[in-house]
């Protein structure tokens, strides 16, 4: 199982075992990572599972799709490395991935 590290806004890291084929959001929720709301349940329609992907990982994680872009775009706190974690599928490729949880979800 790939290991994913979520770094809270306070700086505290939490490393979890994530299941291949499921979303990064799922890995966060299933492991009680604080700061990920995921109100819509993972359909790219609420933008409350926002994370900042570690720059070193951006190339491998990739850019948001059109629908994700339209949701992210409404967040005043988005960055160049912002993604919605429900739209990132966990795979062996992402073993060791580091993402930061924002201070607030919109």
């Amino acid at each position, binding site marked *: 199982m790939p290991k994913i590290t979520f770094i809270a806004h306070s700086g505290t890291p939490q490393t979890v075992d994530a299941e291949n084929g499921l979303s990064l959001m799922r890995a966060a929720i299933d492991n009680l990572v604080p700061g990920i*709301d995921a*109100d*819509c*349940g993972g*359909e*790219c*329609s*609420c*933008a409350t599972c926002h994370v900042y992907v570690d720059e070193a990982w951006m190339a491998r994680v990739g850019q948001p799709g059109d*629908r994700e872009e*339209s*949701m992210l*775009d*409404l*967040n*005043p*706190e988005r960055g160049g490395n912002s993604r919605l974690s429900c739209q990132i599928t966990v795979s062996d490729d992402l073993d060791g991935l580091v993402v930061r949880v924002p*201070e*607030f*979800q*919109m």
Partner: protein
Amino acid sequence: MSEALVLPEAELQLDPYAYPIEALNPAQPGLFRRDAHLPLLKRLREEDPVHFTAESEFGPYWSITRYDDIKYVDMQHEIFSSEGGITVGDQDEDFQLPMFIAMDPPKHDVQRKVVAPVAGPRNLAALEPTIRERVAMILDGLPRDETFNWVDRVSIELTTQMLATLFDFPFHDRAKLTRWSDVATAQPGTGIIESEDQRRAELIECLTYFTELWHERAARPEPGNDLISMLAHSPATRDMITRPMEYLGNLILLIVGGNDTTRNSLSGGVLALNQHPAEYDKLRANPALIPNMVSEIIRWQTPLAHMRRRALVDTELRGKVIKAGDKVVMWYVSGNRDPLMFESPDAFIIDRPNARSHMSFGFGIHRCMGNRVGEMQLRVAWEEILKRFDTVEVVGEPVRTYSSFVKGYLELPVRLTAK
């Protein structure tokens, strides 16, 4: 909002099984006033979840009543447009108010982004101490051992103060905000306004007042952190003052969005706890449940019963063909009571595990911009209520709003029991 006639009560579809299904019309304001809308919506969810009403006071329209279908429609903004209005009734044709909630991308996105930060969690964290102080003052000023209207003394007062803070609106004139909010959504002849002419006249007063505020804020070299300053200084909106109807439209959106919804959820919470006393006990024993209870209140109340879209192309949903141009109404109030999504959906359960999945904020690009403002106000209000009162007891029948859009209360008679 249309010039609708008030139907006599006898024509209300109180027993939905007494009519052929094709005759069912959920957009009857009288049903909502009598809190009698749920049986009809239940029948539609079960038997005809994508339902066409051929004749109503608002013209023909489709009703979407299941949680998953509503979410689907809400997310497909390329198929289901918000352009031109978001309620089942149309705006007065001679008095069109453009506002970003009733726009499609790209214009929607540009305008929303300007004002979004004021309702953002960062700004709210800074505002919370002020809000808590004001809540405390309102609660400490309430009469003890006598019956009063919770809607007036608490719900309206609290949300109006919050709104005045967000606009940096002259505090002594804040009752005007409540009035304009009511005027904007009321149906003529139902107690708030008598005619569309009166609506126009009062909303023009609103525009005049806010135009002065705009010029005053625009003249300041340093933009303030309030909504009017944001609009007046942002490159994307600073020429909006040359389009007064658009300025008014967006003001009304922010006033109604920031007022009615939280106001009615604050009243709804009191009613829900009174109807579910075991939940009130649970809350007293464990105030840490407040944040989850806030989501459950917003689900249970659903302060805006629906949002409307219009199909841009012919499209199919559950085997029904929705034609380009058809109105499509998403009944959030039904989705929030869908048993496929929420177990025992009509029960109010303050520690319901998936309360946050309620659809009262909508989904997709039009998702409520002020969701965190509303949640914060409700959370702070309940924290302070619990500190002071053992019970906020409902001692008479609530009087509900005559509307199939704003689902709220005009009166909620209560008595307080101090701790």
